[in-house]
């Protein structure tokens, strides 16, 4: 036996013995899960809130370039492409959004001073006129300076008076104000008259 013990290699003091199986399954200390749970919970609530907001909120209505801001004679307004949802076409960082009111005039009424005649079908339901900031003169501003014109046949419009207050750069603080009173006078379209189809003797002259 002493011979056998002498044959075993010497054990280095740096080599550690493998732990016993009982020592390997011993409970290990875990980090505290509460901060992570709180963080995940808060994140989930935020995501849910964002989803609900996106579902419940109605889509933003597109802003329509008001025809009143367009000068039909130079045609610039007509060349404006329609705006997409959520965008404000024609608006610049230095512009003021002005709502335009369209008013239908009764037959025989005339457009008020400053109003301009437009076609009855040209008035959009939700219009916004973009007035350029101070120092900028646009076609819409030129159109506003024109006297009102009356179109034969009916349709009337409105024109926005020129912006009274100077707007300081870069962003105006003025509150939007109604710019124009548009009027539309369109005689009601006559109801189509049913054509009387008639069976007659041949040769009968039917007016």
């Amino acid at each position, binding site marked *: 036996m002493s011979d056998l013990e002498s044959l075993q290699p010497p054990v280095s003091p740096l080599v550690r013995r493998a732990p016993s199986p009982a020592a390997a399954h011993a409970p290990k200390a875990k980090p505290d899960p509460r901060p992570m749970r709180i963080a995940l919970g808060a994140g989930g609530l935020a995501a849910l809130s964002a989803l609900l907001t996106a579902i419940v909120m109605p889509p933003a209505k597109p802003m329509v370039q008001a025809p009143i801001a367009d000068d039909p004679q130079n045609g610039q307004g007509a060349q404006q492409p329609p705006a997409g949802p959520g965008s404000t076409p024609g608006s610049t960082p230095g512009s003021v959004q002005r709502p335009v009111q369209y008013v239908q005039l009764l037959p025989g009424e005339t457009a008020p001073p400053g109003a301009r005649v437009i076609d009855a079908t040209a008035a959009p339901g939700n219009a916004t006129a973009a007035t350029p900031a101070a120092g900028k003169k646009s076609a819409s501003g030129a159109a506003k300076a024109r006297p009102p014109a009356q179109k034969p046949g009916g349709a009337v419009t409105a024109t926005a008076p020129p912006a009274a207050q100077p707007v300081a750069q870069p962003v105006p603080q003025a509150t939007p104000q109604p710019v124009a009173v548009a009027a539309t006078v369109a005689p009601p379209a006559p109801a*189509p*008259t*049913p*054509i*009387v*189809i*008639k*069976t*007659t*003797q*041949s*040769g*009968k002259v*039917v*007016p």
Partner: protein
Amino acid sequence: MIAQERLLSPRRERAGAAQANLSRTEPIVPFSHAATSMGGRLVIHLDADSERRREGGRATAEAVARIESWAARLTRHSSTSDLSILNADPADEVSVRPTLAAALRAGRIATESSEGLTDITLLDARLAAEGANGGQPGAVPEAGASRAFDWSIAPGRHGSGIVRRPPGLRFDLDGVGKGWIADRALRFLAAWPSVVIDADGDLAIRCAAGRTWEVAVDDPRAPDTSLAVLRLTATHGVPGRWGVATSGISIHRWTVDGQARHHLIDPRSGLPAVTDVIQATVVASSALRAETLAKAAVIAGSWAGLALLERARVQGAVILTDRGDVLAPPQTLALLGN
């Protein structure tokens, strides 16, 4: 038969139109294309909304061109028409082109469905009644010697036909030709679910399910009045198909040697029909059938004509007699819009 008071008394059409607007379904407000053809008016009515009116204009223009083409082959008023060439041919067996062959077959069917009273072989009698040839009867057959069934048409190649007839027999398609053309034009416009072809008063009508065409029956006694307003509505979810035609003796009439004549020849006598019917309007399954039976009702007279229409199972009829009576078979009530 129903009494006159059940029908519409003569009245202004404007009032009729207003009354019709209060009825069950609104009548169609059509897109209409008017032209002159076949010696009279030609109007095509389409139930086309505003988006399809341009397309409708093209379709009706094409239909009018086709109608003109067919009419040019079938008229007796042109020496170059297929009909005139057939009539000028002395042979008793003549090959005819497809359009004339189809129209002659329709004429044969018309003669059979009218029990011989609508006869397309009476050109000479018609010309005699008009005073042509000095008023001589020419080839008019003797009384009781109708030749309505003495001819036949056999099928030829590629839709053509071979007419076999007694020597000298000549044809006049007249209203039969108009009815046939109206029906064919209706088929030409098959892409349109609601169409009316008005061939000088003879109507070929198609109506989409749930739609209504209103047709006024002209009163020949006064302008701008009507005897009745017929409402043709396609029900039961299937399209409707009708022919409405009017025939009478109050328009084409004249005097020869002091005697009143008109254009409706009774094949039994070879002379203008002696009848108490001023005008007959028939609603049937096609314009050809309606035209055929309307003419037969005038020639037959009021009572015999109503009996004939009953046997033919027409869908409706309105007959005006020289006594001022307005007569109609009972089934007409279902079509009256007032």
